[in-house]
């Protein structure tokens, strides 16, 4: 018997439009998120992470109407992040049918609220999202506010503080690799997964099926991607895809 590692499409949206960035910049309009979710549903994906990447910086609330519409078509575990700053908002998201709420900017601003959320809703429903940029000296720093605000604390310290706050998972995204297909930053995954006991979900840079396996081997508990599932290369045409269970099993991806 094997335990299956999760392979998770990440959808990024701006209010109600599905967009895809490269290195967290140049958002490219893709379409309506509901269509993407319907296709992922037919393909029986393991899980979906939906992130509204402009909500916090625009001072917006989550787009509840859109989220509710999407949830009604999502028959897999569904996580939402973007613009979440209060317990009331989290409560509301769960009532719409969301399983997990993804927190990012609030982690660095109000860890007390994160701990409260964990106490009320349980660790399993709170994901800490950590966007990481590697500087020219090769040093890693976490960023909040869609990659615009640096967390000054060393990343190894930051990640351990988040684990102590008892969040259920760490969603680790490499800003440098976002949309580049250059594979995951395996050193980063290794560095951080060794420090924590909670699951780490790797994101940023997956370019081929083999990258998922490499991510798991580097220490991730689950692997995710945006562009990989949204575009068909080499021309970056929008084409939603997801490997079949057979393709995944051939990879010997399950360990």
């Amino acid at each position: 018997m094997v335990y299956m590692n999760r392979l998770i499409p990440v959808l990024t949206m701006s209010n109600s439009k599905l967009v895809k960035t490269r290195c967290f910049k140049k958002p490219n309009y893709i379409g309506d998120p509901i269509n993407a979710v319907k296709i992922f549903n037919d393909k029986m994906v393991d899980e979906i992470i939906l992130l509204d990447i402009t909500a916090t910086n625009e001072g917006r609330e989550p787009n509840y109407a859109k989220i509710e519409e999407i949830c009604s078509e999502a028959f897999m575990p569904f996580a939402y992040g973007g613009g979440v700053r209060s317990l009331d908002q989290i409560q509301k998201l769960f009532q719409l049918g969301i399983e997990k709420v993804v927190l990012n900017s609030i982690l660095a601003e109000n860890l007390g609220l994160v701990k409260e959320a964990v106490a009320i809703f349980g660790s399993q429903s709170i994901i800490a999202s950590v966007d990481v940029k590697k500087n020219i000296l090769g040093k890693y720093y976490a960023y909040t506010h869609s990659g615009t605000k640096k967390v000054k604390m060393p990343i190894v310290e930051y990640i351990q503080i988040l684990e102590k706050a008892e969040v259920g998972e760490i969603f680790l995204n490499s800003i440098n690799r976002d949309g580049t297909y250059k594979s995951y930053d395996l050193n980063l995954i290794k560095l951080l997964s060794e420090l924590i006991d909670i699951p780490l979900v790797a994101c940023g840079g997956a370019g081929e099926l083999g990258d998922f396996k490499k991510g798991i081997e580097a220490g991730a508990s689950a692997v995710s991607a945006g562009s990989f599932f949204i575009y068909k290369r080499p021309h970056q045409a929008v084409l939603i895809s997801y490997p079949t269970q057979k393709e995944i099993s051939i990879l010997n991806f399950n360990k």
Partner: protein
Amino acid sequence: MITIIDYGAGNIKSIQNMLKKIGVMSEITKDASVVKNAKKIILPGVGHFDHGMKNLKNSGLIDILSQKVKFEKTPFLGICLGAQLLGNKSEEGIEEGLAWIDMDIVKFDKSKMLGQQKIPHMGWNRIQIMKNGTLMKGLESEDTRFYFVHSFHMLPKLKESVLTSTYYGYEFVSAVQQDNIFGVQFHPEKSHYFGMQMLKNFIELN
């Protein structure tokens, strides 16, 4: 018509969404008079055992639920925490459970696990059907998988109560059944086709 119990613990909307998808009407209620006329009952649940049990007590629905399930033999499905509440007690807390099925709820025992599995058990996993019956009809294939999120699992006293088992470091009981009472540790409402098939089977129960 499926009656979903709203006692403030659980992701009720997802269950209703899936039932709607398979063309089944459902009602979400905390009203005893509605429960009294229920044809089939689902008890959802996410979170802490004590929190769930206290909420259920405060809802004032336990008497009518017992009446329905024990005397009228109304088909009853507990999901995740809703399944664990069917037991006598849980290592997670101090509250007494419903004790409709003779079992305790225990934490995953790391010392027994072969491997470095993380707790909670979060993700997709297979089931092995241990007892033939309606609920798992059409789900015998190797491809069948369900979504799990839990740190505690059911430990029935009687072998006859075991409906399915699942491997996570060791074999644990992932679904129980006693007559008309069913409890599943996994989340059918988040398990695509497999969950839809299981809920359809539940609807077909007499």
